[in-house]
């Protein structure tokens, strides 16, 4: 597609439920990143993928968080047993690291509210 697409745009879930957030990057972009933006905070790095592999998972806040990427394209971020502190906007970005242009393009984000 023309840009990075994330779905759903908004998600309200009950505490303890699992949620899946989806990111569809720009076609051909080899790198994909997940960030979390809590109210009034900057962006917190969660994980990045190069192709289908995730060399750096150090930003994931706990083992309740996991992510995968298939076919070098779509990625899903899964949060199990959601807690209220998981409420935030989850942003996805993609980047073509094969060239010299290191501009990352961001999706509109998924606003997750845990009640």
């Amino acid at each position, binding site marked *: 597609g023309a840009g990075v697409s994330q779905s759903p745009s908004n998600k309200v879930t009950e505490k303890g439920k699992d949620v899946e957030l989806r990111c569809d990057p720009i076609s051909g972009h080899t790198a994909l990143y997940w960030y979390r933006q809590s109210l009034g905070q*900057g*962006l917190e790095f969660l994980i990045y993928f190069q192709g289908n592999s995730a060399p750096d998972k150090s930003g994931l806040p706990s083992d309740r968080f996991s992510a995968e990427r298939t076919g070098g394209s779509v990625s899903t971020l899964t949060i199990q047993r959601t807690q209220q502190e998981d409420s935030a906007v989850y*942003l996805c970005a993609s980047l073509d*690291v094969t060239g010299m242009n290191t*501009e990352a393009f961001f999706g*509109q984000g998924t606003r997750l509210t845990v009640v």
Partner: protein
Amino acid sequence: AQSVTQLDSHVSVSEGTPVLLRCNYSSSYSPSLFWYVQHPNKGLQLLLKYTSAATLVKGINGFEAEFKKSETSFHLTKPSAHMSDAAEYFCVVSDGRRGYALNFGKGTSLLVTP
């Protein structure tokens, strides 16, 4: 390790006056530096980027930033603020590790008054 410090969490200027948003960085490698803007309920938009070419970088909407290695700074400026400039601004550093993942500052909220 790389990090970014935005020195002001809030900046308020009058329309038509200059804007200065301050940013200092630390990086063990030659960094790429960026400024992103986020308008309310909108996505992140790249304003400008520095990638070791010219130290004075011009971006969109009249913004520019100067990379000063000796001061480890990358301050964002604009000669004359417009009401539409009111937004959250993020200074960002990337040094090629983590697959060029971006390390964000905490943001500066710019308020423009009539």
